[in-house]
Each structure stands twice: as C-alpha cells, then as structure tokens.
C-alpha cells in the first residue's frame, strides 16, 4: 500500500513539475494584470493579423489534406500495386523529419536556387507556409482513415455497386459515412498541428509582422525581438486555448470511436 502511494506521488510530482505548474504559471502571468490587459495585447493589429494568417493557413491546409489524404488512404487500403510499401513509408516520413529540415527542403526545392529555380515564388509567402504545413500534417488523415477502411471491408460497397450505384454514389452514401469519425479525428489533429507549427515556418516564412507572421511566430518575435514577455505570454495563452479545444474534441471523438 505504501509503495503504491509512493509511486503515485513520484508520478504526479513529475507531471506537476514538468507540465501542470508551468502551465498554471503562464496563466497566472497572462492574467495577473487583469483580463483587459490580456485582451488588448491579443487584439493589436499585429496580433489580429497573426491570428487571421494562422486561421487562413488552417482553412487551406485542412481541405487539401482531407481530399488527398482520402485518395491516398483508399489507394493504400484497397489497392494492390508494386511499390505500395514504399508509398506507406513516404506517408510516415513527415513524422520522422525535423520541422526545420522541412523548411530547408522546401527552400532547396521551390526556392530561387532550388530545383525549380524559383519558377513558383512560394518561399517567404503564403503558399510556402501552406506547403510547409501540409508537409508536417500529411500523415494525419491518411493514418486515421486507412485502418478504418480496412476494417469496414468492401462488402457494402460491392453490394451498392451491384445494385447500380455509381462510384460517386457509393463513396458518398456508403464509404464516407463509415469513415467520418476517422476523418474527423484526422482533421482535428491536422488543425492542432497546423496552428502550432513553428520550426518549418521560421525557415520559409518571412515573419514580417502584419504580413507573414503566424501566431507561433508572433510568440517568438514578441519574446525575442520585442522583449515583450507579457505579449508573448498572452499570444501563447491564445494558442493554449486553441489546443485545449482540440484536446476536448479529441476526447469526444475518441468516445464516439469506442462506442
């Protein structure tokens, strides 16, 4: 019994020192001067533009990942072709690549001295930030949907097509409803990761306030360049709030998946 209490104390202390107390600290620092100060700090023109840029990136990345993620998941779960193992490995690659290396890769491929010789001016602008974010979030939808596709099998789809349904009808009426929780989970993960991406963006984004500065870049710039610690804490708290929403959505979807 005493061992149990001891183990519990050690585990909870570790979590407290590492996660809980630092989080509580930043909340305290953000709101110690009252809510108004926080609100003013996150509604400056630079902050508003950072928030809207972050949301714009999410709004572009999510549909891209859903559409191409579904196509890839279907090909991987249902297809049988040479090189499938390789394709599987490529899907997992972004998890193993450092975000900074993602940025380097995009510059060396799309940039002025890159493979494409700067034919598409994407670096230091919105398309480059979108490409970086798509890279790091690419596995989520595929990896959430593919196992569900395997599990549901093809019987219902075959029945539908035997009864004369077109491929689109089968997809919309049979396949999509069956995988929607998986898609939802993948989207939530994609949104969270997109809002939080930093390393790849520091390399490919210009980071100009009001133009190419996302929320995460704003946190960094306020802390390092402006020595505005409070402003950095406030912007970080906004990001934390968004992360908490994500966590709640994840828990809800997890329950639905288990039900």
């Amino acid at each position, binding site marked *: 019994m005493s061992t149990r209490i001891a*183990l*519990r104390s050690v*585990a*909870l202390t*570790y*979590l407290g020192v*590492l*996660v809980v107390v*630092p989080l509580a*600290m930043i909340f305290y620092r953000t709101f110690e001067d009252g809510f108004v100060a926080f609100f003013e700090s996150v509604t400056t023109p630079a902050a508003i533009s950072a928030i809207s840029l972050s949301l714009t990136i999410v709004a572009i990345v999510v549909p891209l990942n859903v559409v*191409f993620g579904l*196509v890839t998941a*279907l*090909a*991987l779960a*249902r*297809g*049988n*072709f040479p090189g499938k193992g390789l*394709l599987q490995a*490529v899907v997992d*690659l*972004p998890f*193993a690549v*450092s*975000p*900074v*290396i993602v*940025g*380097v890769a995009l510059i*060396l*491929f799309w940039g002025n*001295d*890159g493979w494409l010789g700067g034919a598409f001016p994407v670096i230091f602008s919105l398309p480059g930030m979108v490409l970086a974010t*798509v*890279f790091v979030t*690419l596995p989520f939808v595929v990896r959430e949907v593919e196992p569900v596709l395997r599990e549901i*099998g*093809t*019987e219902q*789809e075959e029945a539908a097509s035997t009864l004369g349904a077109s*491929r689109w009808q089968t*997809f919309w009426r049979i396949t999509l409803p069956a995988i929607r929780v998986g898609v939802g989970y993948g989207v939530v993960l994609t949104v969270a990761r997109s*809002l*939080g991406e*930093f*390393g790849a963006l*520091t*390399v490919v984004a210009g980071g100009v306030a009001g133009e190419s500065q996302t929320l*995460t870049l704003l*946190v*960094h710039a306020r*802390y390092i360049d402006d020595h505005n610690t409070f402003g*950095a804490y406030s912007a*970080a708290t906004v*990001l934390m709030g968004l992360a*908490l929403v994500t*966590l709640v959505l*994840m*828990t809800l979807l997890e329950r639905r998946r288990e039900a």
Partner: protein
Amino acid sequence: MASLAVPKPPARTRRSLGGGVGPIGLGVATLWLSLIVLLPLAAVLTKSLEGGLGGFWDAISAPSARYALLLTTAISALVALINVVTGTLIAWVLVRDDFRGKSLVNAIIDLPFALPTIVASIVLLSLYGPRSPVGIHLYATKPAVILALAFVTLPFVVRSVQPVLMEVDREAEQAAASLGASGWTTFRRIILPALYPALLGGAGLAFARAIGEFGSVVLIGGGIPRDTEVASQYIAKQIETDRPASAAAVSVALLLISFAVLFAIRWFTKRKDVG
C-alpha cells in the same frame, strides 16, 4: 495473417490497381506525396552532396556542427531513457492505481501533443526562466534543453506502455506473489518482459521526436554554439546565414541518425515477436 485482413475481391483485379480510386487516384496520390514530401527531401540530399562526399563530411565535422550533432544525439538518448523510467511509472499509476482525478491526469498526458512547441518553450521559461518565481534558473543550460525535450516527448512511452499493461496477465503475477516473490521481483520477471516491445517502440519514437525538435528548445535553450545549440537550431542558423549546402549536410546526417534508430527498433521488436 496480416495479408488475410485485406480482402481482395478476385473478380476485380483490373480495378484493384489503385483500389477504390483506380489508377488515376493512385497516380494523384503518388504525385501528391512526391511533390509535397519526396522531391523536396531529395533536393536536400543532392544539395548535401553538391561538394561530393568530402564536402559533406567537411560540413558535418565543422566544430559547431559536430558538437550540435553529438549533443543532440546524446541528449535525445538521455531523454528517451528518462521517458522509459517515468513513462512506465506513469502508465503503471494510471492502470493499477485508483484515485480521485485520475481521468484528469490521464488527459494531461496528451497535453504536450496538443500544445504548440513554442508554447512549450515559453511555458517552461515562465517557471524556470530569468523571472523564475521558484528561484530555479535554467535558461540557456543543458538541463533546460533536457526539460524541454522531456516535456514534448512525455506521451510516447506512457501511451505505448499503457495498453500493454492493461492486457498483462494478472494470474501470473498473483502466482509469483503467492510463491513469495516481492513486488519488485514480480515486476522485473513477469511484467517487464511483456513490456519490452512497447517500451522500445515508445522510446524510439521519443528519441526520433527529440532529435529533430526545434520549437520547444528555441526559447529556453538559448542556442549557444558549442554549448546548448541543438542540431535543428544549427541548421536554421546555416539557412539564415545563407549556407544552404552546410544546412543540407547536417539535415541529412540528422535524418540518417533518426532513421537508423527507428529501423533498428523495428527490426529488434520484430525479431522479438518471432522469437
């Protein structure tokens, strides 16, 4: 067994090339993955070999580069080890213990995955940084880097060990205990062997995450060359100072280390499963 789980309707061999999406869908998926992931990474590889193998070697053995690579590898290994101990402990408490607020603690484990890495950095700074209310000043020290990496890798081992611990055969434990084995002996002889694959897998993921980590280290680590500068910070600095070939070479070295570890672990756990 695994191949049986994939139903392949024999009458549809023509369509099964790309599965439900057909050959066009397969082509779209391949093109997408190539354009987003594969070709940019290939560009890194060719850039790193621009000056031949000699140039590659010179770039990664420059004093600051070599120091950053060694530091990153050593600290990542240490963090993986820390996670093996604390992760197993936390998983144990979550599975075997019972107390009020346990489900809240369980939810906290996922927080580091949900939080942006830059937030992790600033969160730790608020407590252990220059204005530390508890008088612990870790800014720009190696312990700060370890702390940041332990924060972002927290969920890996816990989440890989937890389900296995739930499945472990309680009867063998009870038998061991009734034969007079102490709690520690039972854990070491009965439970730990069952956990090995999960522990290795979790530790490998934690290592791979730590070795490429940037956002959580960037504020609290200080990035002092040949002291606290990790490899990803070094790479970012090379890009800033317009030395892309050097950035590419260190990137490739970092990727190779991370792939080698992931492959070794996959190979080891597979062999363990068979044997």
